[in-house]
């Protein structure tokens, strides 16, 4: 970075905390990514630290230290967190009573091993759940009274933009009719496309939608005139909720 882009001229005043707001913001922004200016700041902060030695050196009264230590004592009693914070290995060591038999130490080690194993397994289960949550969504479609044997599924992509419909054992319609998928949200029905099935009642279709499929709460399939209708007009044959 060229020197003129640095804020070296502002660093002494920044270290003294006497820059006015706007300039201070410029320095703060620059310091986040400039090692050279960070180094300059440290050196000026040292200067400021030394400037304190210039004042007449006077001892505080003994009562200040007494009050400080009393305050710390009160703080420790008020907050268990302020009790000595030992490293974990020291805390574990303290937990084991002196003169403890070997079997007790071994049991403790075994318990520790089991706890760690459980944590490890718990993490694995959680990861699997997360992966499952992140995978594609499948919506099951069930037949109605008119088509109890029929079934279907809608598979929606992770981002909700794409979906595929698969149906099975739907009645074969005559050439003037087609099945039509409806995407339902807040009672409003939007067409997801019209499709036909083969002679075994099997059919599939890529779903087209302006909005993410995941934003719809329910899905339904009705029998409509060939090419589809603006809204459902025929009998419902399959339906399911997200």
């Amino acid at each position, binding site marked *: 970075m060229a020197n003129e882009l640095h804020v070296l001229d502002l660093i002494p005043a920044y270290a003294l905390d*006497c*820059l006015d707001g706007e300039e201070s913001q410029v320095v703060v922004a620059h310091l986040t990514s400039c090692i050279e200016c960070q180094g300059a700041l440290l050196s000026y902060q040292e*200067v400021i*630290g030394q400037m304190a030695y210039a004042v007449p*050196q006077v001892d505080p009264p003994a009562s*200040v*230290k007494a009050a*400080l*230590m009393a305050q*710390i004592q009160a703080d420790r009693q008020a907050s268990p967190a302020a009790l000595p914070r030992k490293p974990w290995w020291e805390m574990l060591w303290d937990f084991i009573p002196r003169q403890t038999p070997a079997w007790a130490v071994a049991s403790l080690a075994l318990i520790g091993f089991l706890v760690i194993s459980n944590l490890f397994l718990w993490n694995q289960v959680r990861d699997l759940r997360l992966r499952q949550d992140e995978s594609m969504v499948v919506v099951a479609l069930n037949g109605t009274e008119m088509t109890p044997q029929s079934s279907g599924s809608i598979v929606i992509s992770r981002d909700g933009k794409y979906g595929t419909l698969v149906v099975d054992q739907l009645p074969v319609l005559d050439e003037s009719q087609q099945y039509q998928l409806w995407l339902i949200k807040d009672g409003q029905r939007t067409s997801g496309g019209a499709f036909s099935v083969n002679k075994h009642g099997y059919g599939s279709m890529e779903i087209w939608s302006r909005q993410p499929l995941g934003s719809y709460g329910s899905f339904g399939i009705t029998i409509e005139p060939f090419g589809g209708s603006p809204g459902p007009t025929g009998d419902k044959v399959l339906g399911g909720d997200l």
Partner: protein
Amino acid sequence: MDYSKFDDVALIRQIALARPEALSELYDRYSRLTFSLALHIVGEAEIAEEVTQDVFFRIWEKAETYQADQARVSTWLTSITRNRSIDLLRKRKVRPEGYSLGWEDLQPGWEPVSKGRDPEDLTVQAMQTQHVRAAVARLPAEQQRVLAMAFFEGYSHSEIAERLGEPLGTVKTRIRIGMQKLRSLLQEEQIHP
């Protein structure tokens, strides 16, 4: 444990582990510096005592946030002391009557004798004091003045310009050049307490 053998950074680590004895040792080392700076800024012993206690209690609470690669412990302490003192000064909005905060009051002279302190520590601190005062004394008077206003009173560039009736650019230049020169002078002969 004999904390007097610990260096400053090790003491801070011990304080972070909630060892009051470590804080007691740090207090013994730096309460004089802290109290003196606070007293010079706020001008009243009672308030300086309050600041000193507050500074060390903050160290107790925040020791784990100290970063040794960012500043020496003494620099960290003086920074907290200065900020706390200036905050109090601003809140009170008045300074003790007839009280001045210039460098001119800091020339070599009588210093009260400290009781119960390690003579070697006191000697090093005294040398440090003389070293800094000598460096400041080599700055032109106008640079000393703006640095004192910024350092002891916490005034910004524009506030100093307004109080002195000087152009803002002039004040900025004086502070910049004064600090650069001071850094250079202090680096010529480093004395670390």
